[in-house]
């Protein structure tokens, strides 16, 4: 039985604008691409019962998340004519204002990139075993829930 090598989507800590720029720059040689779509999730400084969120600490069931992400990736490539798809999700403590999710899709014409990106974000939030613990400024916490 051959073991399939799973693509890692997890990065330790926040996703930097420089990382995103490098990812964009790598596509300059892919001259069949006409449209790129990027979604970025940023940690909000929400106020909950008078306390502000200072950071979100992300953990995941990594092996299961990567297996599931692989399924999602295959579904999306089968459904949309994409040239590229990249997904990165943070683990660990991400401060308010920092980026914790980066989804990047590219296609010859704009619609598939946009639609695939939207569907990817929906599925990542609904199907990947990742949990966010909202850390308040007073170091108390509550577990985030995706609505």
């Amino acid at each position: 039985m051959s073991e399939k090598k799973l693509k890692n989507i997890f990065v330790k800590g926040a996703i930097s604008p420089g990382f995103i720029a490098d990812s964009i720059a790598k596509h300059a040689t892919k001259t069949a691409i006409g449209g790129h779509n990027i979604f970025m999730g940023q940690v909000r400084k929400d106020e909950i019962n008078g306390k502000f969120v200072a950071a979100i600490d992300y953990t995941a069931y990594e092996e299961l998340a990567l297996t599931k992400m692989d399924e999602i990736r295959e579904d999306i490539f089968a459904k949309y004519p994409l040239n590229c798809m990249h997904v990165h999700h943070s683990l660990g403590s991400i401060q308010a204002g920092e980026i914790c999710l980066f989804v990047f899709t590219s296609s010859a014409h704009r619609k598939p990139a946009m639609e695939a990106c939207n569907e990817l974000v929906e599925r990542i939030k609904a199907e990947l075993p990742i949990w966010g613990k909202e850390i308040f400024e007073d170091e108390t916490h509550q577990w985030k829930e995706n609505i």
Partner: protein
Amino acid sequence: MKLEIISFGKISEFIRQQQIEISDVINTDQLKSYLETSFPQLAGMKYKLAINQNVIQSNQSLKNEDKVAIMPPFSGG
């Protein structure tokens, strides 16, 4: 039967990673009852099980040395 239990998110605050040795439990429905009795906080919560990295949608039989993950609703992104 010996099972390895792992847990995540809010649930990891009261169920730690552990090996359990149980008898009279042959499927995931029975395991849920066992867990909710052993860890009463779990009873009122929404959660899912994954057995050996397969998320369980309906009752499924268990075998010795299965790895059971107890997962609250996901909140990534």
